[in-house]
C-alpha cells in the first residue's frame, strides 16, 4: 500500500511492512476536537467535504499531522488513507513534519517584498538562527514563507500563530521574537 506514495515528511518503515492499524479516532483525539469534527461533519450533504476543516482541527490539537493522525482522520471519515494524505500534502497550511511551539509565516509576495519582507526573513535568521522551513533547536519556533496573505495594504505582514502582525519593521519583528515563550 505504501509503495507508490511519496514519503516526504511522513515517517515510513524502511522495509515494506504491514501498514499500522488505524488508531481509534476517539482515543487519538480529545473530546473537544471530536466535538469540532462532529459539528463540521453535520453541515455538508457528503461527510468527505469536512476533511479540510477536520484536518485543521486535528492540527490545532496535535500541532502537526503525523502519519498516525492522518490515519485517525481517515478512520473517522471512513476514507482510504490516500484520500486524506493527498489533501494534507496539497495544502500548504498543513504541517507534515513536526513544527516548533510557535509558527511564523512571513509573506514573501510582491507587496510585502516591495516593503521589506526580505529584511524580516533576515531578522529571523539573525535572531533565531533559522531560515525558511527550519525550526530552532530548542523547538520554540518554525519559520515558513507564505504566498500573499492578503495584508498587502498593511505590508509587510507576518502571520504568527494565526494572528496577523501588520505594518512591521525590523525593530518590531525583533520585539516579537523576544516575546516568544
Amino acid at each position, binding site marked *: 500500500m505504501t509503495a507508490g506514495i511519496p514519503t516526504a515528511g511522513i515517517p515510513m518503515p524502511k522495509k515494506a511492512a504491514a501498514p499500522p492499524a488505524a488508531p481509534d479516532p476517539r482515543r487519538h483525539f480529545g473530546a473537544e476536537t471530536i466535538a469540532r469534527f462532529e459539528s463540521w461533519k453535520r453541515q455538508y450533504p457528503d461527510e468527505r467535504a469536512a476533511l479540510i476543516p477536520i484536518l485543521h482541527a486535528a492540527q490545532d490539537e496535535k500541532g502537526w499531522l503525523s502519519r498516525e493522525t492522518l490515519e485517525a482522520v481517515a478512520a473517522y471519515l471512513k476514507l482510504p488513507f490516500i484520500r486524506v494524505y493527498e489533501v494534507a500534502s496539497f495544502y500548504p497550511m498543513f504541517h507534515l513534519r513536526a513544527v516548533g511551539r510557535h509558527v511564523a509565516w512571513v509573506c514573501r509576495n*510582491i507587496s510585502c517584498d516591495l516593503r521589506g519582507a526580505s529584511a524580516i526573513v533576515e531578522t529571523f535568521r539573525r535572531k533565531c538562527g533559522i531560515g525558511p522551513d527550519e525550526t530552532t533547536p530548542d523547538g520554540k519556533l518554525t519559520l515558513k514563507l507564505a504566498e500573499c496573505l492578503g495584508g*498587502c495594504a498593511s505590508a509587510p505582514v507576518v502571520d504568527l500563530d494565526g494572528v496577523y502582525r501588520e505594518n512591521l519593521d525590523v525593530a518590531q519583528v525583533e520585539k516579537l521574537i523576544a516575546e516568544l515563550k
Partner: protein
Amino acid sequence: MAERYLLPRLEKPGYRGSLEEYRREGGYEALKKALAMQPEEVTAIVKNSGLRGRGGAGFPTGLKWTFMPPAADPRPRYLAVNADESEPGTCKDRVLMERDPHSVVEGVAISAYALRAKASYVYIRGEYRASFRAMERAITEATKAGLLADRPIHLHVGAGAYICGEETALMESLEGKRGHPRPKPPFPANFGLWGQPTTVNNVETLANVPPILAKGIEWYATMGTKASPGNFLCGISGHVERPGVYEVPLGIPAKTILDDLAGGVRGGKKLKAIIPGGSSSGFLPASAVEKLVMDHDGLKNAGTMFGTGAIIALDETSCIVRATKVLCQFYHHETCGQCSQCREGCAWLDQICGRVENGEGRPDDVNTLLALADGMRGKTICALSDAAAIPVQLAIQHFRSEFEQHVAEKRCPFGNPPMHVHTDGLDDEKRSELVEIVHSDVLTLLNEGKSTSGKGMAVQ
C-alpha cells in the same frame, strides 16, 4: 468624489459590525424587500443593474444567475461564496468580512433567495481567521433573528492554496479534495457542488446586492460607467505614502487613486510601474498610468485586465526583474500541476527569471521566457497558466532593456541580494545535461508533452 455605499458604515468610529448596529444603519431592509418579490424578479433587478463580478473575471452577476436551471428542476441548488481572497495585492474582501460581516451575510441571503439555493457555503481562506470569526458571529446572530429562514449559510475553511480561488477548484476543495480545477463544460450552474446546480460569487460582488435592492438600479447607475456600473474596493499597496483599501467608482483615473487617495509615491520618488489589477494583470509603465482608467474596458484597452482592481505601485528604485521573479515563484508554488503547460511552464519561468535576476542569465533567456509564456496562453483547464504568463510578457514588453541589462552585466543593477532559484532535485551532472537539452529546444519538449522539470513526471 461620488457617493460611497460599501465602506462608510464600517468607517464610523466605534462601529463593530453587530446585527444591532447594522440594522440601525438600515441593514436587512433590502432582504425584507427581496423576500416580498419572486426570486426571478430579484435576479432581473441584479441583471439590469449591470453589476459585474469583483473577484477577477468581471462577469455580469445577474446573467450568471440566469444560467441556473428553471425553478421546476427538482435538484438541490447551492450558492458558493468565494472568500478565498489570495490574488497578490488584493486585500478588500477581508475588510468587509472582518468589519461589516452582516453586509456580506445580507448579500448572501438575498442572492441565495434569488437562486432558490438550499444552502450557501462561504469558502474563507484558511489564513483569514479574523474574517472567519466575524462571519461566524454574524451568521449566528442572523440565524437567531430568523433572517435566514430555511436557507442556512455555512462557513468552510481553506488551507493556503491560491488555486482554490478558481471557482471549480473551490468546489473540489469544498468537497474535501485537492484543489484541481474541473474542465468546463459542464458549467457550475448545471454541475457544481456535489454535482448539483451551483453559482459561485465573490464576497464584494454580493455586498453590492443589498444596496442595489434597497436603492434601485437608477441610483446604482449614477456611479461607475455604463459598461461597469457601481463602486469597487481598490486595494493599493507597494511604494505609496498611504496604502489602503479605498471605495471608488469604476472608471476613476488611476492617477486619482495613486496621487489623491494614496498620497503619491513614497518618499517623493518617481513612479516606475504599476500592477493595475492584482498580480495576474502584469506590469504597466508609469507613462501608461497617466491616462489609465480603472474599469474593465479601460484596462483591456491598456493591454491588460481589471482583475481584482488591486493596484501595486513600484517606484524608480524597484527592479522589474526581481518583481517578475517574485510573481513567477508565486505561480510556480501555486500551480496545481494538472496541465503540463502550466506545471512545467511556471517552473521554468521561475527558474529562468531567477537566474536572470541573479546575474546568471544567458543571452537568449529573454526570448526563451517569451517563448515559454506564449506556450502557456489559452491551453489549460483554468486561467492560472495565463495569469503566470501575462506578468512575464508585459514585463518584457515594457522593460525589455532591464532584463537585457541583467544578462549583459551579469548582476542585478539595483544591487538586490541573490534570490532562491528553483531547482529540480537532480544532481549537478544530470541537471546540466538536461538544461542543455531544454535550453536548445524547450518548446519541442513541451509540445511533445514530456516533463522538463521536477514537479511532474520523472525526467526521461
